[in-house]
């Protein structure tokens, strides 16, 4: 096991967290192996630091253990963390900047998760379209508003951008398209793909012969 401790040290590292081998800060705590990683997280910014971890691991943290054990069977993490040690280790401190680790971890996780996430997001749009096609338009809109709001609340702007970018316009319900435009309105300045989506939706409504005055008023990109 490789033990890491994440230490809040804002005076030195501003918004970054300092990550060190646990053996450096708690020499008697654990042993070092190479097949998995443990991270002990402490400090008031715990939840921020924990934000990078997967839900199951966050639950472990919140349960009060304060100890996260990555499953050695998780090939992604097993591949990432030893590399991080090599790339980001600071010889003078035996430590790591969490932000560097975050970036690398997120990049790596994105490789393995992005297909799964995109599939889920696409399924959500498809599900809304199916509901609308079966006459359950209000249920479809409730799904759109709840799903998008949940993503925006969690600052998942990239995922919302991806959703807007990948909507199959020709197959989409007009109400669902409007729902996507309306539910993303409060976050329009953070959604770079919304501008193009807006233009595409306008063209799609015109193509369908559904365009009318005022249909998109107030929904313009901001």
């Amino acid at each position, binding site marked *: 096991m490789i033990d890491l401790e994440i230490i809040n040290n804002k005076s030195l590292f501003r918004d970054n967290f300092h990550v060190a081998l646990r053996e450096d800060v708690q020499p008697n705590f654990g042993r070092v192996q190479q097949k998995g990683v443990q991270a002990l997280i402490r400090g008031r910014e715990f939840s921020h630091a924990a934000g990078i971890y997967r839900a199951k691991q966050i639950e472990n943290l919140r349960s009060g253990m304060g100890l996260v054990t990555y499953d050695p069977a998780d090939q992604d993490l097993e591949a990432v963390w030893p590399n991080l040690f090599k790339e980001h280790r600071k010889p003078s401190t035996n430590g790591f900047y969490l932000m560097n680790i975050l970036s690398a971890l997120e990049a790596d996780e994105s490789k393995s998760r992005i297909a799964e996430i995109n599939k889920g997001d696409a399924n959500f749009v498809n599900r809304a379209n199916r509901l609308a096609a079966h006459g359950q338009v209000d249920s479809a809109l409730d799904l759109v508003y709840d799903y998008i*709001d949940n993503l925006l609340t969690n600052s998942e702007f990239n995922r919302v951008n991806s959703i807007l970018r990948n909507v199959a316009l020709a197959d989409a319900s007009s109400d669902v398209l409007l729902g996507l435009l309306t539910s993303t309105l409060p976050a329009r300045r953070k959604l770079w793909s919304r501008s193009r989506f807006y233009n595409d939706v306008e063209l799609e409504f015109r193509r369908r012969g559904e365009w009318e005055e005022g249909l998109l008023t107030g929904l313009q990109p901001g």
Partner: protein
Amino acid sequence: MGELRLPAQNPFSEVLHVAIAITTLREHPGQQHLGILHRDGSENAVRLLHLAWHNQLKNSDPRPSYAWITLSIPPRRARQVAALCRRVWRANPDGVPYAFSQPSDCFATTGEYLIGPTRLGLTCASFVLSLFESAGLRLVEYESWPTNRDGDSERQRQIIGLLTEGGAPAEHVAAITAEVGNVRFRPEEVGGASIATVLPASFSEACNNAKWILVVLFEQGLVT
């Protein structure tokens, strides 16, 4: 152009997606109350979403003492407003505070009311404005609304007194006292704006329509 309708002739079941509901208040003569009628297709029901009082957001069956106003917005957009009504209702289980803040950028992406230094709360009328605003639909030309009209500050102080009597937290009362003098959007004016042919409505058009609405409400005895 929107239309003013009376439930005796046009029951609420005729609300297509969304409409404005307005009534006069028995306990507060000269005051009106405003809310949003919205259809929930999954329940096949029309509900009245309204800010009844401090932290009392209600989503109830409308009473026949409300007149209702159709809006000149595309039905597809009206349907989005209805969806937003349901979302705001789900997102604010503890209600929305009552105050005199301006009705812009009030709801987060979650539909939850955003409390902040300039967002202490809303009135029944500004709640309606802010919800439509969140759907991208501006009902009034804010810049055309006058400040410090006769009776506005008095009404705001009266509300503060009622909040105090009702046990609202002292810090909330102190904070909204600083908002006395903020622009006041009267319920009948927002109703008048909703009838306008072109949105957002100017103050003068909203006022003209408001006078007519009040006449109808009193003539029909629509009192809640």
